C-alpha cells in the first residue's frame, strides 16, 4: 500500500496517515495507563472464611465468617462426621478475584 502511494508520488497521504497513527497511539497509551491506574486504586471488600474443627474427631469444615467469630471459640455447629462439638480453628481472607466485589 505504502509503495503504491510512493509510486503515486503522494507523500502527504503517508504523512497524514502517520500523524493519525501517532494520535491513535497516544490515545491508546493514555487509556491503558489510566485503566491500569484505576485498577491499582481499586479497593475490594474481603471474603472472610471461618475454618471449623471438630473437637472429637478433627474433621474440618469451612464456612463464611459470621460476626462474633473468633479463634478457639466453641460454636453451636456440630460435626457432620461424628456429631461432636466444633470450634473455630482459623479465620482468614481469600483472594478469589471473581468473587470480589468492587466497592470504590
Amino acid at each position: 500500500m505504502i509503495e503504491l502511494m510512493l509510486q503515486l508520488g503522494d507523500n502527504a497521504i503517508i504523512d497524514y496517515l502517520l500523524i493519525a497513527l501517532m494520535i491513535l497511539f497516544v490515545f491508546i497509551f493514555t487509556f491503558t495507563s489510566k485503566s491500569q491506574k484505576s485498577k491499582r486504586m481499586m479497593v475490594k471488600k474481603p471474603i472472610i472464611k471461618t475454618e471449623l474443627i471438630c473437637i472429637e474427631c478433627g474433621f474440618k469444615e469451612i464456612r463464611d465468617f459470621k460476626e462474633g467469630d473468633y479463634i478457639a471459640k466453641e460454636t453451636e455447629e456440630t460435626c457432620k462426621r461424628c456429631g461432636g462439638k466444633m470450634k473455630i480453628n482459623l479465620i482468614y481472607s481469600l483472594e478469589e478475584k471473581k468473587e470480589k466485589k468492587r466497592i470504590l
Partner: protein
Amino acid sequence: MIFQLPNDSMGIIIQTIYILLFFVLIFFGQRIQLQLTLMELGNMIGQLDRMRINARNETYGKLKKYAKKEELLKDIFERVLNSFVIFPESMDPAGIVQKMEHIMDTRENRFLNDVKRMLNNPDIDEASLKTLSNMVEATMALDMLYKIALHFYLLAKKTGNFYIAVQLQMQAPLIFSFAKAYLQAVYAFKEGAPVGDSVGPLVVSKFIEGKKIKKHHKEFVKDTDVYELEHLKRKIYVVKASGPGGNVGKPGEAIKKLLEKNKNSIKIVIMIDAALKLEGEKTGSVAEGVGAAIGGIGVEKFKIEEVVTKFEVPLYAIIIKMSLAEAISIIKKEIAETYEDVIKRIERVIEEETEEGDKIILAGIGNTVGVP
C-alpha cells in the same frame, strides 16, 4: 520521502503549527506539565476522599449500632477524628521513652473514654469496645492521610509550583498503598476478624491450645495476659495481649516484670511477630533471628532491650513476613497457616538453646483482634 512537506497551502499550515508548537512547548512546557500533573493529582485526591468517606461511613454505621444517643455520637465522633498527639521534645533525648509512654498512655485512655462516651452504652463488652476504638483509629489515619495529600495538592495549585506537585505525584503510589491498607483495616475491625498483625498472638494462642495451663494471669500488666505452662519439660511463660478484642497490650512491660520477678532464672526470651517483607519476598515466609521483634513507636522495644541486657538473657525472634497492607487487613490464608511451622521452630529453638527444667518467655506480639 516521508514527512517531506508539500509545497501547497496545507504544508504551510502544518509547518506553522510545528513552529508554534515548538515555541509553546519552550515557554509553556512546564505549565502544561503542571496542569497535567495537577489533573492526575486531582483524580488521586478524589479517590482518597471517596476512600475516606467510605471509612467514615463504615465506622459511623458500626458505632451507631451500639450508640444510645445519636447526637452525642455525631458530636464526639467528629471531635475524635480531629484529635491529635504532640510528641515530646527530643532535643534532650534523656528520658524521652518515659515521656513518650506517658503521652501515649494518656492518649489511649482519653481515646477509649471518648469512644465509651460517644456510645454511652454500659452494656457493651470490653472486647467490642477495643475493636471499635481500633476501627476509629484506622479511620483517623485515613483522614489524616487525605488531609496531608490535599494540603500539598492545594499548595502546588496555589503557588503554581511544579516541584511540589511532582513530589506528591512521586509519593502517590505509596500514599495509595497506605490508604488502601487503612481502609482494609476498617473492614477488618468492623468484622472483628484477625488481621495480618495478629499472627503473633495467633501462634502463641495455638501453642497453648490443648496444653495444661498451670496459671492464667489475667491482666498481668495492662491489657496483657500471661499463661504459665509446662512443655518439653521446661516452664514456659506465654505473653500475649488480652483478646479477642482489638488490642496490642504491653508485652514489653510484661516481659520486664517477668524477668525482674524471676531474677536470673529465665534462660531465653522468644518473640513472635509479623514483619514487613521486601517486595519480591513471599507473603507468609518465616525467618528466624535475634533481637526484639516488636513494632510501634519504640517504647515496648526499648523496655525489652533494656531488661534483657540487664539480666543478660538471649533474645530470639521469629518473624512472619507480609506487606503493610497485609499486616492491617484481614489475615490471609497463607499467613494464618504458618502457625504450625512457627510452633515447630519455637520448639526447635527451645530444645537447642535450653535444657530441661529451664524457664522460658514466649511472647506473641501484635494486635490480638479475633484471637482470645
